[in-house]
């Protein structure tokens, strides 16, 4: 199984470390050509405006949109979730992958001073310590979307078929269970 981590900007190294600790052939991906060689892709945390700008500039946005629509597994954390969202409560970034039927509000948990750690209950996983950094908030989920975890009544980990998205950063805590869950999605194709 070969899983890519989008390496345009953000904490891709942390995702690669978790994947490699699970014995996965994990690749840092920065071009359209590299996308073709993968069984799944993680879009890391970072600045969504920066990652969106680079994705579009390198012609990767439409490629990802096409593959994602055909069942290619993608997991977006934080900025990655913003890029997967169909709707935003915000004008930026205008161009996204946009395949997941959710509405996301950027920086809705506040600025850095409001960034936080908290324990979550995740379906199929159990208790999970989560880190939220200037996190985006899911303010609407479509009927096709399964909520896997909530915090304060707000969804924070959601799945729609081959797409997984979280407001928090499992790559920052060294607990690989959310990554394992995604790898099972990849294994089932």
């Amino acid at each position, binding site marked *: 199984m070969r899983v890519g981590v989008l390496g345009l900007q953000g904490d891709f190294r942390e995702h690669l470390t978790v994947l490699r600790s699970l014995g996965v052939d994990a690749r840092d991906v920065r071009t359209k050509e590299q996308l073709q060689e993968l069984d799944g892709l993680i879009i890391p945390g970072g600045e969504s405006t920066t990652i969106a*700008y680079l994705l579009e500039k390198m012609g990767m946005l439409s490629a990802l949109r096409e593959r994602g629509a055909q069942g290619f597994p993608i997991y977006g954390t934080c900025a990655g979730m913003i890029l997967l969202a169909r709707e935003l409560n915000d004008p930026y970034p205008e161009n996204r992958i946009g395949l997941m039927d959710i509405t996301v509000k950027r920086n809705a948990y506040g*600025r850095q001073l*409001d960034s936080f750690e*908290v324990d979550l209950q995740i379906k199929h996983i159990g208790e999970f310590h989560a880190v939220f*950094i*200037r996190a985006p908030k899911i303010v609407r989920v479509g009927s096709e979307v399964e909520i896997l975890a909530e915090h304060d009544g707000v969804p924070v980990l959601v799945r729609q078929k081959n797409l997984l998205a979280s407001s928090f950063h499992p790559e*920052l805590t060294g607990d690989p269970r959310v990554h394992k869950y995604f790898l099972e999605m990849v294994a089932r194709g």
Partner: protein
Amino acid sequence: MERLTGTFKVKSGLAEMLKGGVIMDVVNAEQAKIAEKAGAVAVMALERVPADIRAAGGVARMADPRKIKEIMDAVTIPVMAKCRIGHFAEAQILEALGVDYIDESEVLTPADPEHHIDKWQFKVPFVCGARDLPEACRRIAEGAAMIRTKGEAGTGDVSQAVRHMRLMNKQIRIVRQASDEELVTLSKEWGAPLEVLRLIKELGRLPVVNFAAGGIATPADAALMMQLGCDGIFVGSGIFKSQDPERRARAIVMATTYYNDPKVLAEVSEDLGEPMPSISAAHLAERELLQVRGN
């Protein structure tokens, strides 16, 4: 469990999210928007860019809060601001404004010749400059959640940032190979806190993100610093003191991501117009150097 805020995890966590990105100095809302559109991961809100601070002389202080608020309102990316070394009251003001990161910076005139700020007292994270590993260790021991090279700000001369990064890399190699008893001696000789050295030995790298800063003026400069192992790039005067800031900003963003791809670097380096007016750091007198402030 209640939400925990202001932990070291969330402080260093934001720096992790900025990796592979470019943080740009801006002096107003208009520049901040240009930076955001060009792909900056954050902006540094300032009264003046370092080249102008250098030219003006006198005492350089924290920016007017109104200016910082104006910039915070203009963009959705994180906003950083600078306070003077040791000036914890300026830092308290910046925290009250809600900035996302504070740069306790040698570019401003130090307020305390003996001490840096005790950064553990704050919920807002701090980035600090360093010329070598012992200096980085001291800042981390004081609570810095992100490190940057000092370089020589406002010059457009990358040589000092290169020197600082190469020295840090060399010293990290020494720490990795040192035995436990040698670490104690290194700690004494270097004036570097032992617990931070132990952490560096265990991780094989700095425990926080390390960006390049001080003199970066071109896409090639950014690529050079990334290839030397920096996690990302600060560009101070290099963008808005150049002939075509928007174009140069985009080019430096591309160069920071594709630092290992000379073809992309060649493409983005083309036709950028004049870089910032630059001065060779080797020609500066000791009293003109910003990097020697704070240690």
